[in-house]
Each structure stands twice: as structure tokens, then as C-alpha cells.
């Protein structure tokens, strides 16, 4: 891997950028690998990267049915925060946030992390109570968190409307100053480049059509490019997890839903932080290009269609008009949808499975982007050691049997 440096930039600028190497190879699949990761999205690439880097497992392939990093990592609203209610979640996401904070240098690839602060608004007394509960829990878990009253919210985010005369006035907000946004594609590219440099084969346009088991143990996968053997197979396929699990005869507590997002036309900087509201159902930030980036809740029905209904966007903009009435004359430039795999408790699964050699990482719902580094980090650990790391032990599949759910609905009704 050619390292990026001031020197390499200057040299290339002088030579017309003729000599930049490819970010990653496009190898043909080998007959067999130690670990085969299904899913070349952010989480899959991070998994491969940490397998190689933290565990020395380099005999790894990542197979991706489409183009690399083309799933939810390419479609999310890039919000990063770790202010989750429960201890288990807070530990997981805080670990991720710490990795984020060093990620550009770790990967020698600028993921453009902007820690501009995340506000989670409270609009009712119930919101206030639950918000303060979460701030207290965060603080005691070592996650930075503050409670702001309405005036404090206005001071931190001047364009917001805190008038008491709207249907659901802003009563206050929790603030995580270390929260923010990052350049979503760059994260996946950085992990891909780093994994490739450590010997991982990233194989695009390779669709898994079957999972082969021999005597209850994983043997490899059938693909549109032939059989690929593997000692261990790791499913990291987000919205398509159920289908792949089905190939292995495994049922999951997961439903796939459309989640939509949109951007406005680019505007001069007007909104510095991230603003999220579960009660009126909208979240918004402004990208480094100047676009307002907005998301909301999922469409209710199961779908693999990567698209949702217009009414969901209309509802979300109506909510936005309460918070930022001045944005009424701004225009929606582009809207799109992803497929999110949702667990009953709004928490992920990072787990071994009843099938030896098969591992699964799914169920991130609307909140997977922010967890990308730790999702890969803990999953790599689970695969390499054939045992979960303490961080992801609470997120095993068997919690649905014991009842030990990590129910984040209360804290993150539209979680993301």
C-alpha cells in the first residue's frame, strides 16, 4: 500500500497524478480461505481489516454481490454518537467512537470525522425524564453527555426554533459533544484499502448462492463464480442477513425494512451540529458539501426494494418545519432508500451460531454506521477466537431465548 503523505501528494501533483496506485486489487477468488466474509459493506470490510491486523488472520476473502461498499454504508446519514441508554450498548458504541477518533490515522485515509456535537431533542415531560436518565447513565458509563435546557439548545444551535407556540416545543436536549458525522464512503474505502494491503482478497460481483456444510460444520460457499472453500464463514450482510442465514438453515429474529434519507441542495454553512428528534421524527445535519442531510423512521413493511413511500419523507419534512421553519424554502435534491435489518430489541446481533464455523453480525437496524469500527473489531475477535469479546457477549443470538434483551427502543425510538 502506498502511504499517503504530504510528500506523495506533492509528487503526484507534479506528475499529473499518473502514479497513484489502485486502492485495492481485484483478485480472482482462490479455491479456499481460512475465513470468508460475506458482505463487502462497511462492517464486512472492517471485520476483514481487524482479522488481519489484530489477529494475524490474513487468509481472508470478502465476497460482495454488487460493488464494494454499496449497501447501507453508501446510504446512511453518517451520524456518529455513543450516548445509548443501557450499559451494554454504551460500552459497544463508546468503543466505536474511540476507534473513530483515531481512524483517519489508523487507516492513513481521511474519513473526515467531524465531532460537531449531537443534540437529541426532548419535546415532552416524558422525553425530558428519559433524556436526563440517559445523560446520567452515559456520564456514569464514561460517555460524554450533557443536558441542555431550551435556551441552551438555542445557544448551541442558533437556527433552531424553540418557541413554546409550536405543537411539540423544544424543552431541552441531550448533547454529546464528541458525536458528529463522518464521510461514509471513505470509511469503507479506508478499511478496504487497509485490508487489501494486509492480504485480504476483496472480490466484488461475487454473489453467494449457497452455504455448504459437511457434518454440521461449515465447508464453504457456493457463488456465481464457483465454490469457495472456507473454514469459517462470517455473515455481515445487513438487510440480506435473513436470506443468507436461510441458506444455512438458520432462522433470525430480524425483519428487513426500507429506510429513507434525503439531501437538500448545497447551502452555505448554517447548521453546525447534528439534531435528532425522536418525538417529531426527524434528524438533520449539514454535510461538508453544504447539503442538509435528513433521515427519519423506517417504512413499516418488510422490503428489499431499497425504496420507500413519499409520505414518509413528507412527514419528516413536516416535522422539520417545526424545528427549522426557515428551511421551508430549501429544496430536496435527492432521496434514496436502504434496507435495514431490524431486531425486536433494536440492538444488533454479533454472535456465534449453532452451526460450527458460522458467525453472524446483523440486526443493526437504523444505527449501524456509527458502530462500523467496533462491529468489525468485535466480530473479528469472535471469529478468530471462536468466542465473543466481552463487548459483544451481550449481543449473542441466545438472548432471544433467555429474554436478556438489550431494549433500546425507549432510548432511541427511531435509533440511528
Amino acid at each position: 500500500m502506498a502511504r499517503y503523505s504530504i510528500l506523495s501528494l506533492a509528487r503526484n501533483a507534479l506528475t499529473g497524478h499518473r502514479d497513484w496506485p489502485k486502492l485495492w486489487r481485484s483478485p480472482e477468488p482462490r479455491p479456499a480461505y481460512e475465513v470468508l466474509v460475506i458482505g463487502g459493506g462497511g462492517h464486512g470490510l472492517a471485520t476483514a481489516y481487524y482479522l488481519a491486523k489484530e489477529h494475524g488472520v490474513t487468509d481472508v476473502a470478502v465476497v460482495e454481490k454488487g460493488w464494494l461498499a454499496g449497501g447501507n454504508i453508501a446510504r446512511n446519514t453518517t451520524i456518529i454518537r455513543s450516548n445509548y441508554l443501557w450499559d451494554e450498548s454504551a460500552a459497544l458504541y463508546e468503543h466505536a467512537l474511540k476507534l473513530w477518533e483515531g481512524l483517519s490515522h489508523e487507516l492513513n485515509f481521511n474519513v473526515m470525522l467531524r465531532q460537531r456535537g449531537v443534540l437529541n431533542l426532548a419535546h415532552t415531560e416524558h422525553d425530558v425524564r428519559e433524556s436526563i436518565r440517559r445523560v446520567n447513565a452515559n456520564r456514569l458509563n464514561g460517555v460524554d453527555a450533557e443536558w441542555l435546557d431550551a435556551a441552551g439548545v438555542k445557544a448551541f444551535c442558533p437556527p433552531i426554533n424553540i418557541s413554546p407556540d409550536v405543537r411539540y416545543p423544544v424543552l431541552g436536549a441531550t448533547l454529546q459533544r464528541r458525536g458528529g458525522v463522518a464521510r461514509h464512503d471513505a470509511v469503507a474505502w479506508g478499511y478496504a484499502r487497509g485490508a487489501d494491503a494486509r492480504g485480504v482478497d476483496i472480490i466484488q460481483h461475487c454473489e453467494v448462492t449457497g452455504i455448504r456444510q459437511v457434518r454440521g460444520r461449515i465447508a464453504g460457499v457456493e457463488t456465481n463464480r464457483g465454490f469457495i472453500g472456507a473454514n469459517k464463514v462470517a455473515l455481515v450482510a445487513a438487510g440480506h442477513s435473513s436470506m443468507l442465514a436461510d441458506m444455512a438453515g438458520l432462522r433470525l429474529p430480524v425483519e428487513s425494512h426500507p429506510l429513507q434519507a434525503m439531501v437538500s441542495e448545497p447551502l452555505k454553512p448554517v447548521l453546525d451540529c447534528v439534531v435528532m428528534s425522536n418525538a417529531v421524527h426527524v434528524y438533520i445535519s449539514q454535510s461538508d458539501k453544504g447539503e442538509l442531510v435528513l433521515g427519519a423512521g423506517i417504512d413499516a413493511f418488510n422490503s428489499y426494494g431499497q425504496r420507500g413511500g413519499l409520505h414518509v419523507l413528507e412527514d419528516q419534512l413536516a416535522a422539520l418545519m417545526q424545528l427549522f421553519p426557515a428551511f421551508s424554502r430549501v429544496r430536496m435534491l435527492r432521496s434514496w432508500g436502504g434496507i435495514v435489518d431490524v431486531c425486536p430489541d433494536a440492538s444488533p446481533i454479533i454472535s456465534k451460531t449453532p452451526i460450527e464455523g458460522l458467525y453472524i453480525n446483523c440486526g443493526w437496524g437504523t444505527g449501524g454506521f456509527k458502530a462500523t469500527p467496533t462491529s468489525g473489531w468485535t466480530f473479528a475477535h469472535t471469529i478468530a477466537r471462536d468466542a465473543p469479546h466481552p463487548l459483544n457477549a451481550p449481543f449473542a443470538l441466545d438472548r432471544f431465548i433467555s429474554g436478556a434483551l438489550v431494549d433500546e427502543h425507549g432510548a432511541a425510538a427511531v435509533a440511528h
Partner: protein
Amino acid sequence: MTGPRRLPNGGRIDRSRVLSFCFDGRRYTGYPGDTLASALLANGVRLVGRSFKYHRPRGVMTAGAEEPNALVLLEPGRFAEPNLRATEIELYDGLVAESVNRWPSLRVDLGAAAGLASGLFVAGFYYKTFMWPPSWWNRVYAPVIRRMAGLARAPSEPDPELYEHRHVHCDILVVGAGPAGIAAAHAAAASGAHVILADERPRPGGTLLDGPAWVGDEEGAAWAERMLAEMSAQVLPRSTAFGYYDHNFVALAERLTEGLSPAERGGRPRQRVWHIRARRVALATGAHERPLVFPGNDRPGVMLAGAVSAYIHRYAVLPGGRAVFLAGDDSVYAAAREFARHGGEVAALVDLRTDSAAEANGLLVLRGAVPLRTFGRGAVTGIEVEVNGTRRRIACDMVAMGGGWNPAVHLFSQSRGTLRWDDESRMFVPGLSAQAERSVGAAGGRFDLEGCIAQGAEAGVTFACELGFEASALSATPAAPAAQPGVLPVPPKSQDKAFVDFQNDVTAADVALARREGMQSVEHLKRWTTLGMATDQGKTSNINGLALMATGLGRPPAEVGHTTFRPPYTPVTFGALAGRHVGALADPVCRTPMQDWHETAGAVFEPVGQWLRARYYPQLGENMREAVARECRAVREGAGILDASTLGKIDIRGSDAAEFLNRIYVNGWKTLGVGRCRYGLMLGEDGMVFDDGVTTRIGEHRYLMTTTSGNAAAVLEWLETWLQTEWPTLRVYCTSVTEQWGTITVSGPQARALVEPLVEDIDLDPAAFPFMSMREGWIGGAPGRIFRIAFTGELSYELNLPWRQALPVWQRLVEAGAVPYGTEAMHVLRAEKGFIVVGHETDGTVTPVDLGMERMVSSRKDFIGRRSLARPDCLRPDRKQLVGLLPEDPLEVLQEGAQILEAPRAAAPVPMLGHVTSSYWSAAMERGFALALVRGGRSRHGDQVWASATTGDSLVRIVDPVFYDPEGTRLDG
């Protein structure tokens, strides 16, 4: 005359009025019918904008929705609209517009310094740099990048205008009123079908208005007018179909005040979003001309050839004096002829091909030529081309280019139709349909006028027949003439920038660099370079970009593919999408019969579900705590009244009603006598508390269930779901009666004295009317019910009155001395009694056992959620359990949401035992108290722990959650 470039005759403008407008502080004039772009061109204004990244000077390039360059901020101030395309803004008198993305001015833009470093700032440069030294990212680089971002300024004031939505069904929707669309709508409407014809422009006609056109021996525009006059279709001008969704649902944005100044708009809705469910859709959306990719192709004065023709014919504007036409296809010849015919000088017609047979009418044609570069500071002054190995420099003040046409397949693609690369015509055309639509005319790859019209008419007739209307038989569309493919770009040899995406400054070299770095999928290309992500969404750039990638990879464009076309087709105003769901209509408020009274009494409200409930009634000089304490004392010492109308009320009847309740609630219902009430707790199937309330048997097979205010709708749906999907054989019927009964709770030792004068036929004596029972009778002259249930621990009568008769009773009670109390006092009083509130003491993770209600949970029957309570995690002894807390400092009121710790101020992570769920000042105890969920809390009564809040840590003692009258001696007054 309105500007030096205005032709003396022609155009579809109204020369009887002159409009004055202002661009970047300078005054100009134009005519009604002009766009801002045409009026600026007429005035000889060439520099109208700056590009996004390098701040290159830019001029008007197109005459429509695909414009990448001419973006303005319209009407700075209250009516501001950022980033509008000057090519779409209809001129009105007094219009004010500003160019964007420049500082301090359009002519002198310091941002252009970015262009000097453009050798560094190639595609993907962000990711490789700004990392050293690490601390500079947040302090220096990121803020600078941010300052460079964006185009226009965001509006800073609330929108003074209104928007609306309209929902319609139609048989056939035709999108685009060019020749194909008009023909389709005309043919379809003739059958009697309900047809809507929508067009984005102010005037239907499409390309018929852009140049000379003849339909048979009828002039094109006249044909269009006649057809429109003949047809019974609903014609919507200024209406852009922006999204094609599932099940033939198409969304349109109609601009109702376009071409009117803010003063002329008169308060009418500014835009209207149409939600159209069409049985069939004809897509006649036309095509966009492809720019040519050559060095210096972005200089102001370089335009699309089709746009030149459109400016001449629509607006009587000759955009240049001496022009070079660069032809990648034959349509450029027609534009050159029109330019010459209207007095322009065609310096040369430079054809990139060698084999065209197009008629040049005596113009100088240079075949097989390659454009090398353009000249000019600001606007273009010349161009250099290579012909047969020799370079020629040609002076000109305009370059008109055309590389061929791309069908506008956006809506087709959004409908999930698959595109097909047609090698012969070198374009993506609609392939397999996924919905009930057809692409006709140029949108379908058909470019001859006769063919477009025939194809449109055929679609109209076919649709009508498919839908059962009688339509005249039609001759089939003639075979298409031989394709006249345009040219696809090849990587230029020169180092000068050849732009592919004009707004985002993506060059041919950037595309090549992306390819070399492995970003070879079109989606990677888009994301690495931002190609196609500007406000024009790649209308002029996407096909050129993917063609360059294909050439570079040595693969056909069909294999490289295209990026996904996403809605909206052109940007749509947020406010229009929000429609009327703003302000007071954002979410309608449910009002109780006493709502007006509460408002008059100066109550402070809080939202609870759809309701706004009176939280407390501050009297002069009282703060919240004083008011609540006064209200609490009134209930404990005299009598208070609470408006409880918001509680959900569900009438449940049928011979299996008791069995049904048995399955829904954790406790038993078969032994409840008529006229008796019982508290019930319902769980989700996961064993967690979902809702609670009192249910009363009001007849042999009839019950009245109450629910929490916020959950009423959810509980009704819950009941209906089980009845319909799981137990259809149970004879039970549920009806919401929440809004049938106004509910007044009279509570306190004086309650009986207050209620007594209101009733005639109900004996209130506790012996005759015991706790947890119900009586029907006349209350204040109205037929009603009285329930003896108590959430406060005091003697209470809950009066249910017909909705409209509740207020007079409320008023009589007030006159008789009852003190109104709000939800806050209600919470204090119930918490003193240790009663839970769903949403305070529960959060979806709490079981009845956790709440200390295990004795309620029947072991003799199954009920929803029962099995889940036996899962290992629900049996853990260290689950969080409901307890009371008393702060060691009696004056302290703990923070709700404070976390419970074994010891204060340890280093994170600190193990948390639970949290404070409710916390109040008790007027009765004259101290603060709280309820909490604490790990293993029931066995820890008497222990001291810490409550950790944002305001500090406090020492508290765990106690029984019933603080007040634990023996229940006050229930009978």
C-alpha cells in the same frame, strides 16, 4: 428593446410590457415570457455564476431543467429561494436575484484561488490529505473546508407562504406536453378517459416551441394549441412530475405563483404537490442534449446547441454574434441554420464526425475536427480546433455544442423499469417496464417528429383500450428512421480541464484518475469524484462520465452501466412536501369538554398522546411547585376535581367478554360481579407491562375498559388484533367510547359532599356504594355513571357524563368549592400511594413482578405474556424492582432520571443499580420523595444508596413504595 441581443421580432414573449429586474445589484429589463436566463442573455450578460469547487466563471449553458451553471438566489430576504436555475425562473417585474458561491463578487471571486491549486485538488484528494499534523484536522482543515461549502445562503426567516397537497386518481397520466405527450393525451382523452397532462414549463408544446416545426402543413406551435384546445384532458402547466413510486403513484410539484412577484402572489398557495394514482402513465419527458467534453468547454459563452435554438424561438434572444457550432450530431446543424437565419454569424460548423450528410445551407463545415481549447478571459473569445492534423484558431463570442441526446429516462428508471443501452443510437433507452407505463417520443428514444406524434397517439389509444374505453383505431407508428447517433466523449489529449460535471468541477482527467485508482464501478466513480451529484443530478454529465469510464476500461457502455436515477427529477421545496402539516395543523389536538375552561383558568398544559392536558393551574404569583402543592393539599384536605376525559375508554361486550379479558389481563375476571370494578394489568407477549387501567363490569356481558391516555388507540388495536387474528371464535366486540364520556374525578374527604347535590337516584353512602363499584344514574341532570375508584388514595367519585354535558357539571363543582387539580398533582398523589404510571415506572423492560404486583398475576389461567415471565432472565433475583426513595435531606426533590449508585463519585464506568422513575415534593409529608427501580430493591428496604443526577449526588434511603396511608383508611372519606 430589452437588451442588445434581443431580436426585433418573434419569440413567445409579450412585447407590450417591459419588466425591470435586478441581478447582482444591476438593473436590466425583459419581457413577460422571459426566463431570468433569457433576459440576462438578451442583455448580453454572460457571466452568471461560479462553479462549486474551483469557482470557475460560468455562463448559461442550457435553456431548461438540466442547467448546471446559472444558479441564483432569488429574492434575498423573506421570500428567498436558494439555488434556483435562472433557466427556469419566469421573469416578473421587480425580480431581484443574486449569483451564488462567490466572494466578494461574481467578477472578483477570491474562491477562484482554489482553481490555482487545482493541480492538487483532484478527485479523491480529501481522503489522502489534511491529516498532518493530526491536531490540525479539527482546528484548521475541517473549518476551512466547511467555509468553502455550499452554494447559496440558506434562508434565515420563517416561510411567509403556504403550500398544499392534492390527491387524485386518474385513468391516464401523461408526463410532458411536447409533441408525443400532447398526441398521447389527445388520443386518450378522446376515448372519455380521465386524462391529466402535466408539463414542467409554463407553456405546453415542448420542442415544438424550440425551433421551426411542422406537423403536416400545420405550424408546430399552432398544432399544439389546437390539440390542447380540442382535448378534454386536465392540463397542468408548471407542474413537474418529480417522483414515480410504487403502484403507479406519481408525485408532481405545481408552481402556482411562478412569474408573480411576492406582492402579486396575494397569499395564494405557492406550490401544490399532487399525489396522482394513475392507472396508466405515458412518459413523454423528452431528452437532454449532451455537452461535448473538450478543454475549456466551461467558459461562459459555451452553450448547448439546442439551447441556442430555444433562446431564439422561445425568447427572441440571439445568445451570440459570431458563433462556432460544434456538432456531435445532426441536430446541431439545424441550430446553426437557425442562428444564421436570425442574423447570427456562423464562423464555422465544426463536425466531430466525418460522415454526416446533414444540410449545412452553405455554412463553412469542418469535418473530422477535434476541439482543442477555448480562449477568453471571462467569456469565450475564440476556439482552437484541429482538422486533418492542422490547428485552426477561430474567433467567436459563442460556442454552441451538441454531442447527441440522452432520453430523459429518470421517471422510467424510478418506476423500476430497466434501461437498455442501444448501440446504434448510442444512448440508454427504456427497456423492460415494471409498472403500467410507456415511454413515448424522445424519452423512448424516438426523435423524428412524425414518429413521436404517432407513438404518443398509439400509447394513448392503447391505454384507453386497456382500460375499457372506446378509442378509435389507429394506424401503427411508422418505423423509426435510421439512428443518427451522436458522439461519446473520448479522453482529451490536452492537460487543460475538460469538464464532464460542470457544477461540481469533475473533469475528464478526474474520471481517468478514478479509473486508475480502482474506482471503476459507476457508483464508485460518482462517489469518488462527485460526478452527477450536483443540483442538476447529472443530467448533462452522467452519460459522458460513464462513456469516458467505458472508453478507459475498453468496455462497452452497456457493461459499465449507469447509476440509479433517484427522485426527485428536479429539486422540490421542503415546504411543499410538508404541505399543510405545519403550524397548528402539524398534529391536531384532541380537546376535552373542559378544554376551554382550562384555558380560561390559565392552566399550563402538557402533551399526553394527542391531548394537551392541564398540568396545573397557577394562581396569581404562584410558581409550579406552589400551585401543585396547593392542589395536592386541596385533595388531601378538602376536595379536588381532575379532568380525566382523556383516559381511553373501550366498551367491550359479548358473551365471551370475561374470557377475553382473562386472556388479555394478567389477573382473573370471571368472578367480577356486575357493577364492580377491577384494576387490570396487560402485558405484551414478551411479558413486559404494556398498559393498565380499571375495567368495570357494566352488564351481564358488557365491560368498560379504561386505558392510559396515551395508549388508548394502541390498546384498542391490540384487543382487535387478538380477537380477529387469534381468537375469531370469541364473541366479543370492542368500541372506543373515549369521546362519548366526559370524565370528572372528584377526590378528597369532601368529595361526597360535593357530589351529593348533583345526584338524585344514587346512594353515595359507602355501605350502599362501596369502593371499586359503579352506579348508573342522573348526574347534574344528565344520565351518567359514577365509579368509586381512586388514584389518589382519597374518597373519590369518577363521574362519567355525556361528552357535551360534562362542562356544566364541572362548573357546578367549581362553584361548590372543588379545587381543579392538574396532571402534576395527580402524579404526586398517586406516587404518594405507590401507584405506578405506565411510561414512568415502566419502559418496556419491566414485568409485573418487578413492580411488586406478582400477587395479581394469576397462576390459574394463561394470558398474553405469561410464558415469557418464566424465561431465565425474568426469573433473575437481581432484576430491578419498584421501591420508594426518601432523600436524606427532606427538603430535596431528586432529579427524575437520576441513577442509583452504591457509592458516589467513582471513576467511570460506575455500576448502576437503577434509576429514579418519579420524584416529587409531597405537601402531605412536607418532604421530597421518589419512586425508583432498583436492582434487587425489594430486599433492600432501609439501605442507603446514592442518587446520581446531573446536578450532583444525593444520599437516599430505600423504602416501601407506599408513602401515604398504607392501610387505606381514607378511601371512604
